[in-house]
């Protein structure tokens, strides 16, 4: 929905308006774009090239001709040039090693040479222009890459990189001096025990902590410098306030809400310099003590609190969570939950916060969440079902005392705060591939029954999973040496204490490997059609079918229509839906039967952020009647245009799956504005819909209100400023519509299939 058409509840003042205008300007100037290497990366989550994600410059940068613009939700601000000192990096001076300490030396040089900038009107400062992988070599040894190509051949892939959720309360309570002291105490401990490797790791942590302190302090200098050159008294006050806060934070722990928000933002800047992808936990829980203290001391008003949090959203609307439950399972909603949501109502735009609903949640707060969602119309906040998140963590093997502190942390995923390195959203299993092999094998063996065909399919899924296990294990053997995540590790439990990086084996408490399974609805619909038309009705042979799909159904339209019109998942029809449950359960069981070399099982996620758009042509036509040019289904959502019985039927189909057994499966809804008839209270209807959806067992709702006509115009007129401020929730992430890759835009428009009731 167009931002300028949103009726905000809180009105930004001139200062906030200027910051919001700058945010949009950066978008229009393409300074927030996020690229992935190529179509292979989208589909297999590994491009076959470097192991990093979205470097814009440097030796690992994506090829301009092949890269794909995922959207403009990048935390970095592009300045159009590579990192100026890339060639002088310590590791490029003949000292590259696969060790955390070597990595740390590069990081220190990198951040020391990243500018500290203070912009007009800001109160919260800190930006970055480059990622470390634009300056430091990021590639695994050949053995790992060979395993990667083997896995891709069979339909799987993945990276391992910054998709976790640190617990910022660790840093908020210690501050950088406290973290440094903790590191030094542990160095002493391990020196005494003679554990050199751990000492080396922590020596790296020590120099990094010191470099971040310098980075923060440089912001204080920059602000003072600007204050001395300014004649605007309001602006001088802002600069001096920034200087004071940065000086404090370069050493001690934050004591006010302003300091706490600034501490969190600096942590994100320092951390995002080494990778894109983490969530940052439960903002309302993190900030509530600071807010309460400031309010009771009369230091702050609610509006000031909204502005501080709002400024952080303007910098980057990170993945964060609100609501949920506390350890005693009571409602966690607090005053700060409201402020965090109100802050969004103040600044709008792209944001990735999730509200974690449960049946005991403050009803007024949840109503307000639905009010914001339907008024802004762009998927903010994402609605998730806290009890299902927690149940799935417990089912995975989480201890109760850790499981309550789960946070919605990424597109469709969630994470134990500070306790889990779970590889969410970075691994892929393309289910169409084993199905294609099963069809070929069944033809070769002249298979006569569906049961035999199914057995072949199961065997092929297992082969793909095994190839993925091998690839991941090879990655895990090297990860902590190739690309440790040392800033993140400051705010993870047990890492500093163990002298190990959070990416290492036996470092954090939970190390599952989560895998996005691509194409479940297509495979389910395909297998169901094969079962009906090939094995039960004997209408077509598998060889006929294979021949037809190999030729993209050319000259076989009647046959295609037959396959297309066998009942499909998403219409609340038992046979087709049972197959969808069957297919997803099968891949779940296969994955859960495999263990990684960190000692934890693999887990499926019924989601992929955008691979379904490019996978279609890459994989060819499928037996569900799909043409090669069409995308695959998005996550577990029914294939576009196949669910024709209305949303309620789709919800019924969707919730036949038990989402506590999976790591996420978002339900995507795009509605046109006239869906809500005049006089209907949108917030109440959305609230009722989502509560019913969650009570049926659903886990996540991504909701967009889209005017199809406007989007179609925008697609053909990307540069027209009239369309620049249309925000959409693409899959699990947000973007401005015009920034998205063309194919994404087309797919987004095509999926709007609830035009009328």
């Amino acid at each position, binding site marked *: 929905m167009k931002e300028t058409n949103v009726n905000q509840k809180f009105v930004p003042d001139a200062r906030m308006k200027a910051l919001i205008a700058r945010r949009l300007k950066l978008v229009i100037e393409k300074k927030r774009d996020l690229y992935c290497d190529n179509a292979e990366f989208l589909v297999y989550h590994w491009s076959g090239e470097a192991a990093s994600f979205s470097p814009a410059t440097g030796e690992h940068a994506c090829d301009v001709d092949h890269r794909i613009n995922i959207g403009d939700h990048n935390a970095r601000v592009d300045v159009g040039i590579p990192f100026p000192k890339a060639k002088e990096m310590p590791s490029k001076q003949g000292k590259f090693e696969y060790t955390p300490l070597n990595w740390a030396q590069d990081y220190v040089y990198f951040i020391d040479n990243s500018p500290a900038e203070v912009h007009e009107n800001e109160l919260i400062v800190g930006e970055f222009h480059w990622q470390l992988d634009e300056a430091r070599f990021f590639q695994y040894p050949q053995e790992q890459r060979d395993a990667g190509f083997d896995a891709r051949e069979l339909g799987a892939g993945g990276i391992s990189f910054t998709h976790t959720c640190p617990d910022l309360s660790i840093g908020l309570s210690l501050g950088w001096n406290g973290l440094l002291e903790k590191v030094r105490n542990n160095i002493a401990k391990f020196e005494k025990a003679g554990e050199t490797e751990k000492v080396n790791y922590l020596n790296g942590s020590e120099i990094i902590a010191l470099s971040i302190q310098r980075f923060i302090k440089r912001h204080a200098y920059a602000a003072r410098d600007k204050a001395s050159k300014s004649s605007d008294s309001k602006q001088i006050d802002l600069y001096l306030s920034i200087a004071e806060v940065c000086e404090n934070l370069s050493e001690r722990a934050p004591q006010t809400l302003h300091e706490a928000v600034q501490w969190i933002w600096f942590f994100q800047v320092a951390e995002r310099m080494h990778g894109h992808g983490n969530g940052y936990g439960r903002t309302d829980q993190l900030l509530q003590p600071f807010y309460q203290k400031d309010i009771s001391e009369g230091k702050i008003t609610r509006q000031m609190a909204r502005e501080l949090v709002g400024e952080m959203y303007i910098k980057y609307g990170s993945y964060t969570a609100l609501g949920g439950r506390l350890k005693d399972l009571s409602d966690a909603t607090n005053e700060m939950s409201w402020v965090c949501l109100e802050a969004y109502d103040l600044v709008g735009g792209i944001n990735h916060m999730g509200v974690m609903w449960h049946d005991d949640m403050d009803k007024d707060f949840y109503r307000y969440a639905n009010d914001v969602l339907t008024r802004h119309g762009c998927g903010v906040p994402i609605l998730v079902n806290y009890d299902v998140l927690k149940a799935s963590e417990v089912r995975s093997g989480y201890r109760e005392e850790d499981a309550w502190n789960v946070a919605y942390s990424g597109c469709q995923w969630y994470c134990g705060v500070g306790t889990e390195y779970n590889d969410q959203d970075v691994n892929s299993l393309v289910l169409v591939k084993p199905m294609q092999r099963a069809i070929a094998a069944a033809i070769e063996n002249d298979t006569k029954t569906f049961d035999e065909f199914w057995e072949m399919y199961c065997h092929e899924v297992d082969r793909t999973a095994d190839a993925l296990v091998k690839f991941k294990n090879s990655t895990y053997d090297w990860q902590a040496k190739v690309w440790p995540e040392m800033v993140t590790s400051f705010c993870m439990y047990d890492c500093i204490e163990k002298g190990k990086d959070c990416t290492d084996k036996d470092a954090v408490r939970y190390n599952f490997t989560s895998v996005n399974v691509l194409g479940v609805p297509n495979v389910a619909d395909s297998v169901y059609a094969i079962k009906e038309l090939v094995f039960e009705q004997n209408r077509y042979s598998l060889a006929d079918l294979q021949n037809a799909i190999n030729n993209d159904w050319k000259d076989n*339209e*009647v046959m295609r*229509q*037959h396959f*297309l*019109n066998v009942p499909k998942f998403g219409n*609340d029809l038992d046979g087709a839906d049972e197959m969808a449950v069957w297919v997803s359960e099968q891949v779940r069981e296969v994955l859960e039967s495999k263990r990684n070399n960190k000692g934890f099982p693999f887990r499926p996620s019924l989601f992929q952020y955008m691979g379904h758009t490019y996978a279609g042509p890459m994989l060819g036509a499928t037996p569900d009647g799909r043409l090669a040019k069409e995308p695959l289904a998005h996550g577990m959502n029914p294939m576009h245009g196949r669910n024709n019985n*209305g*949303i*309620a*039927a789709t919800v*019924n189909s969707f919730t036949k799956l038990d989402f506590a057994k999976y790591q996420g499966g978002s339900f995507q809804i795009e509605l046109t504005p*006239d869906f*809500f*008839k*005049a*006089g*209907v209270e949108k917030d*109440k*209807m959305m*609230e*009722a*819909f989502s*509560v*019913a*959806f969650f*009570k*049926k067992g659903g886990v996540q709702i991504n909701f967009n209100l889209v005017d199809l006509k406007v989007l179609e115009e925008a697609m053909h007129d990307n540069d027209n400023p009239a369309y620049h401020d249309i925000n959409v929730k693409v899959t699990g992430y947000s973007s401005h519509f015009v920034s998205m890759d063309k194919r994404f835009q087309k797919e987004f428009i095509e999926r709007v299939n609830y035009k009328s*009731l």
Partner: protein
Amino acid sequence: MQVANKEIKGRIFKIESLNTHNGPGYRTVVYLKGCPLNCLWCHNPEGISSKKEIWVIHSKCIDCTSCILACPNSALSQKDGKIEVDRNKCEGCYRCADACPSKAIEKIGEDYSVDEVFNRLLKDKPFIDASGGGVTVTGGEPGTYPEFVGRLFEKCREAGIHTAFDTSGQISDMALEKIIPFTDLVFFDLKILEEEPAIKWTGRGISKILKSLHWIIAYKSKNDGPELQFRTPIIPGATDGAENLNSIAKLISDKYKALFTEWEMNLFNDICEDKYERLNKTWSLGQAKSDLADYKRIEKFRDDNAGLKIKISGFVQK
């Protein structure tokens, strides 16, 4: 002995969930097929005949002619590349629809038992409960299936599902006796109050309709409920004249002022025109649709009649 609910059937041409404009909250709306009236503006012309019918979605047709071969009555033919239906020959056996690989032929009307529809409603119950919604029966004229609607509503009552009955009033006292005691909300259509124009536009006079209204009013005076709302479709040249609207206003303000909760005026649009084409019927209202001037006029009528609880609904071309 009473006939079991699984034996009592209604002919239904659509069931839709999450409807938001046929009563409070999310409604599951059941459309029953068959109507004693024949309003020229009807938005659900496929609901007028009580017979099973088909129609062709030409955009989905792939010219395979499977349907023509499947028809036992030779009711289908191809003309200018389009499948045509001879409605005098079609008996609604649906063999053509079953044979069509691309689902271009759609069935209009299937028989469902009370239990089948009720089980379908139970699936929507979480939405109904969370929104304070319920079930609404409409059509066609749902009152032509008194036993079916009465039994369905009785079961809904037991299950705590709010029931709404959308009627033209052109129904028997027996139907009212079966249905109204289990109804929470009645949408009662008041279209045209003059006999001659009523016959011209709707095919029937209005005596039975007024009788039904009196029956409901009498019932309300002895019982706690049902809630009553009036509905008037605003049809250019047919119902929207000042004289007609004033006479409806007079009727309800003189006698029933305290007895109804809303008078909905539904502005007219022509989005159903393609349905007429598919049914090989003529859409006699041409380009007629409510425009902004109509909206302003109705708005003024609403403001002039402040006590009549008028709500304006429907699309307007602005």
